[in-house]
């Protein structure tokens, strides 16, 4: 059974559970026999047990899938962080080149003075 099918089943069972309890309320309000009420109650307990088991299973699966996806997203984030660092590095390099040119100019000026 796929996760999506399990989720569909959960929706059906939970809807059914609310209806069953509503039926129990109506039966009580119409003063139905204790036997009828007991039958509804037994079904309600069984249904609730099934729903709880299904919920536990779905939550446990989800936690596993989420942890796996988180690892993949984290790895993508590391790649993006590297890209950002590279670009910041490129801006720094451009600034460093201009600074270096400044030193070269000084050297050229000094050389020019010496050759006069």
């Amino acid at each position: 059974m796929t996760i999506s099918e399990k989720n569909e089943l959960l929706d059906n069972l939970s809807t059914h559970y609310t209806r069953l309890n509503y039926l129990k309320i109506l039966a009580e309000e119409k003063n139905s026999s204790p036997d009828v009420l007991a039958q509804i109650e037994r079904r309600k307990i069984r249904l609730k047990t099934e729903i709880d088991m299904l919920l536990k299973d779905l939550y446990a699966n989800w936690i596993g899938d989420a942890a796996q996806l988180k690892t993949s997203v984290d790895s993508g984030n590391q790649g993006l962080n590297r890209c950002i660092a590279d670009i910041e590095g490129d801006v720094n390099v451009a600034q460093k080149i201009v600074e270096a040119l400044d030193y070269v100019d000084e050297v050229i000026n000094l050389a020019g003075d010496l050759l006069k």
Partner: protein
Amino acid sequence: MNRKWFICISVLVLAVTGCASVDPKPFVTFNSVVKEASTGIDSAMAVNYDWTRSGFIESFSNDPKSTFSQLVIQVGDKYSWWMDKPAIYLEIKRTQSALCDLNNAFTEYANLLVKLSGGELIKADTFDQLAKDLNRNASDAAKALKVPATPAELSLFSKAASEAARLYIENKRQGDLIDALRKNQDNVQKYSDLCIELIHIIRGNMKTYYVEKYEPIRKAWNAAPGEKRQKQTEAMLALDEQFTNALGVLEQVEVTYSAIPKAHADLSKAIKDNKSDLEGIQQLYSSGMRLQRLYTELKKANLDSQK
């Protein structure tokens, strides 16, 4: 010759400066709606946890088969612990923690996209300063080399050179962004699918535990004399409101998460063409705004019910 060279380079570089910077606005919108969706699912999850826990207390304490040992935690080595038959609300607690980790990772991704697309990374000021510094250098060098260039030509050359550096970095940034969006599209789709899956689980959980929540109110109603049922009526109306609010939030969170993959794909279009029609982003934004209103109401109703 040198004079011609200056002019040629300057004209050539300035001719290709038509490459526009990335507009960060769609990335900011995407980032803010991702946060709204994450808050929306968190708030529904919080109500779900409260209901399931109180539902467990109600059914466990009323079940004659319940034993005290079922409530006792087994303590293991160091920080480990377990329960022989853990209640569902504990599984919800673990899910909340896993959801928080996943949302944090995805929110960080959306933040990084904003950073990579934003003006802070390639500031115009930095390149203006580069042009000024280069201009000073070029003037000094031209004098030393006896190059016959006018100050206006040197200024044009410096501006062109710094623009070339900016363009190089801007192109690299756009390439990195497009690459990141393409590589992560699959993860975004999985994130959307997984969150919708969780929304469906919460929906089934809340429908079931709505019954568990109203049963004590119903019992109190039945036990109270006919003319003294105001407290139970108010409690039931508050619960109904909380339930319908929660379903409304879940429905809207589902719409929002469904819109995330298309909006993410639209971000690539926004890089290529600032004026392109970003329908996916627009849908995501509208959905995020509706969601914000709904979960604010839900949080308020939840707080009121705890008073």
